[in-house]
């Protein structure tokens, strides 16, 4: 059972949620979700703060604290009960609590996707294109017929690499990668997967 803990500052920031109407509360929750996704809407925030007659800064800090809640719960993939228990610490109204839970469940997958994009990773492969040519002659040699593969590899960091390979190398590369692929179906891998879970 994993629960998220708010520090005292955050608890203070989220204090006024207890007194909010559902309408206003849900708007704040929505702003927090959008903030996490990178769509910060200051105008909406301004409207809300004037409506409930509180300084904008206070509402902003509430949004940050709620974002923290969503970030951590998505990161840990919190179950419904764990999420509700964490939210309990700031004791919001029943309606707001439900609103939070619903937003969390609805957006969890997308938030996890965004988090994994932000994670440490090597550039991944975008595409590999190939072309088979026969090298006939060049400035220094003529009268040959050597098959040669031209390859273009694109990676996710927008790098494009051109290279050539002869048939033997390409075949050995293919064999090696096939072996690599088989590993994901091997007993050893299945055992480790089971053990880690």
């Amino acid at each position, binding site marked *: 059972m994993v629960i998220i803990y708010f520090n005292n500052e955050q608890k203070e920031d989220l204090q006024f949620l207890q007194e909010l109407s559902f309408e206003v509360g849900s708007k704040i929750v929505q702003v927090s979700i959008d903030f996490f996704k990178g769509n910060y809407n200051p105008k909406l925030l301004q409207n809300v703060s004037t409506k409930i007659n509180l300084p904008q800064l206070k509402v902003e800090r509430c949004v940050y604290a709620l974002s923290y809640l969503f970030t951590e719960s998505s990161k840990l*993939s919190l179950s419904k009960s764990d999420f509700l228990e964490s939210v309990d610490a700031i004791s919001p109204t029943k309606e707001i609590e439900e609103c939070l839970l619903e937003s969390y469940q609805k957006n969890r997958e997308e938030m996890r996707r965004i988090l994994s994009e932000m*994670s440490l990773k090597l550039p991944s492969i975008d595409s590999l294109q190939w072309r088979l040519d026969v090298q006939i002659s060049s400035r*220094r040699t003529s009268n040959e017929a050597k098959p040669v593969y031209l*390859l273009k*590899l694109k990676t996710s960091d927008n790098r494009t690499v051109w290279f*050539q390979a002869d048939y033997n190398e390409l075949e050995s*590369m293919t064999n090696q990668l096939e072996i690599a692929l088989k590993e994901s179906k091997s007993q050893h891998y299945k055992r480790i997967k089971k053990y*880690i879970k």
Partner: protein
Amino acid sequence: MELSKSNLNSLSLLKKIPKSVHQELLSLIFGVLLQQADETEIEKSQSLKQIDSTLLKEVFSGLITIVIQAIKNNLNAKSLAQFLKDTNAPTEFVGLLSTAYGKTFQKIKEIHLETTGFYLKKLIDINWRMDYIIKSNKIEQIDKPVYFIDLNLQKKDGQIEKLKFSCDTNQLQDLVTTLKDAVLAKKTLK
């Protein structure tokens, strides 16, 4: 095979070089082509030193060009001899040259011509590694396998560049399918 006028001229210039030096001249030329000797050999040889340097230069460069052109055009020793007979080269020299050529042209071809052609980086080796991702500081419970692939590419001057990238199981599957198609294409060619 086409040769420029000045190259052909160098053959007739051979007459000005004493016959006794011909063999040494040939050893020098083939030594340079096989990368076993360089022009400093001229200083070491008493007989070569005595030849007028302009003359020597012209003959030397002419002969080297002839040999390289012959290799480029895939001539064997016989065809080279035939070609040279049609020019005004001294007969004995032609014999010596074709013999030396016959013995060494494969090696010279390997050393010079197949490695200085224009080409892109060449794939020489591949390494791979499979990991299982558990968690990161941004997200936990990832539980997915990932592959790291490392290609070794060799440039024209022999330098090796490493190309690294990662992929998940689906991307690797696509990659393997693409490569299999490529390999199959060659099989249907021959």
